[in-house]
């Protein structure tokens, strides 16, 4: 058997991975939409979609196909260029961030080492955070270009919310970077293996603050003010229809998957099984790391749905108060405590 040509290694496999990275979040989004509708229904004492396909699993597909064949309306007073580019910006910035999300340790196939990420960068974490912050441009472009009042208010709320909650996110991420001594997502997970403990258990405050801020960044309940239905109709995407609206809709869920992935990687050991260093539990390593990773992010995605099914919505001033009065001081104090303890111990 001859070794595959470099063409395969240099071109085909990366291409395959890029396609996979495009589809993995989309598949997760479909799963997430179905999960959300079923779980919220169960919380509310209903059944949820169960007619289309087995237990309604084809429901998101039917929705997607339908929405592709919907008319695309660009109203006359809209700024056409920005109106068209906004959904794409939101969608692709959240999909692009997935390039740097590692799904597991490299797999050896003969002499070739197949890495489970598209790109590994020494500044991967910064890139992911940056990309997720870029999507807010799409939101404000969309809100502004619609030239309508509710979308504009929704977009402004969204920008303020994302900007404020970037601060606690940055501060909590710093603690992780500080312990792992790396900004590379792969190295951060490895450092948790070497350090014998998940950072979420070591620094629970960081994990909780990051998660709350992450929920706020994704504009989800109880922080779903930018699209608060009872106030702002549909928020920044009020004027969008058809496929462009689908982009916003999908990006919303992709963003949730991204935040869940980040929580898992930064605080809950990525693809590592629980208690990775306990010899008695070594058999847990037999399960592929990818599955551990999936199970963990499913837990956090479920948490999103659970919160949505339970809590009312924050008011705008309370939302800002929560960030300035609680999360930012807390994350600052937490950061100082980590630094001090690290040097004292």
């Amino acid at each position: 058997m001859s070794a595959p040509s470099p063409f395969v290694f240099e071109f085909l496999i990366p291409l395959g991975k890029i396609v996979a990275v495009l589809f993995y979040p989309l598949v997760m989004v479909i799963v997430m939409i179905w999960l959300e509708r079923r779980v919220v229904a169960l919380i509310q004492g209903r059944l949820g979609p169960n007619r289309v396909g087995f237990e309604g699993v084809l429901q998101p597909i039917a929705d997607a196909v339908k929405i592709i064949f919907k008319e695309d309306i660009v109203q006359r007073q809209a700024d056409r260029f920005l109106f068209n580019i906004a959904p794409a910006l939101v969608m692709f910035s959240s999909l692009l961030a997935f390039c740097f999300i590692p799904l597991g340790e490299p797999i050896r196939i003969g002499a070739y080492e197949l890495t489970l990420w598209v790109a590994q960068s020494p500044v991967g974490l910064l890139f992911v955070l940056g990309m997720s912050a870029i999507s807010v441009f799409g939101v404000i472009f969309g809100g502004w270009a619609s030239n309508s009042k509710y979308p504009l208010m929704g977009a402004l709320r969204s920008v303020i919310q994302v900007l404020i909650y970037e601060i606690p996110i940055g501060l909590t991420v710093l603690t992780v970077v500080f312990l792992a001594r790396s900004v590379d997502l792969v190295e951060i997970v490895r450092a948790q293996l070497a350090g014998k403990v998940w950072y979420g258990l070591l620094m629970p405050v960081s994990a909780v603050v990051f998660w709350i801020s992450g929920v706020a960044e994704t504009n989800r309940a109880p922080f779903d003010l930018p699209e608060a239905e009872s106030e702002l109709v549909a928020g920044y995407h009020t004027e969008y229809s058809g496929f462009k609206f689908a982009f916003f809709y999908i990006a919303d869920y992709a963003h949730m998957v991204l935040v869940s992935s980040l929580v898992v990687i930064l605080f809950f050991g990525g693809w590592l099984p629980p208690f990775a260093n306990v010899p008695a539990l070594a058999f847990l390593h037999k399960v592929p790391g990818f599955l551990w990773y999936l199970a963990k992010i499913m837990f956090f995605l479920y948490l999103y749905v659970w919160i949505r099914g339970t809590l009312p919505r924050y008011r705008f001033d309370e939302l800002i108060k929560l960030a300035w009065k609680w999360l930012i001081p807390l994350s600052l104090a937490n950061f100082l405590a980590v630094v001090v303890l690290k040097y004292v111990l």
Partner: protein
Amino acid sequence: MSKRPPGPQPFLLTKVDRFITWAQKNSFWPLGSGLACCAIEMIATAAGRYDIARFGFELFRASPRQADLFIVAGTVTNKMAPIVRRLYEQMPEPKWVMAMGNCAVCGGPFPTYSVLQGVDKVIPVDVYVAGCPPTPEGLLHGLITLQEKVAATHPTNVMFKRHE
């Protein structure tokens, strides 16, 4: 929908039609618009006992731009009629309208100076559901009837302008 083209429908397009209508009929996103009494029964249909979500119709959209189905639930007055019309026009094609309740069907028990005698005077209606108000079962029956209607359409005719 358009007039049927002459001759039989090509095989491939029939398959595509079936696929598209399958998606469309299983994913009506209703416009969250309630006018009067019937709106309460519409909400009751979304609640646990009747659960409209089983069919995938629970995503009541607040914005008409994202809705497929306009359930006119209640009395349409002359003051409200222009707004109903505008909401209909804001919805993207393909779109469907259900007149829920006797008021929307024909003005119901209000033959007065301020009530529009049937919403079909301002927008085209696909399905009429009688009742004052219709029970949730009635609303669901109307939706299933609409599903049958959508399943018999040929979206590709519109797309490829295959009508004369």
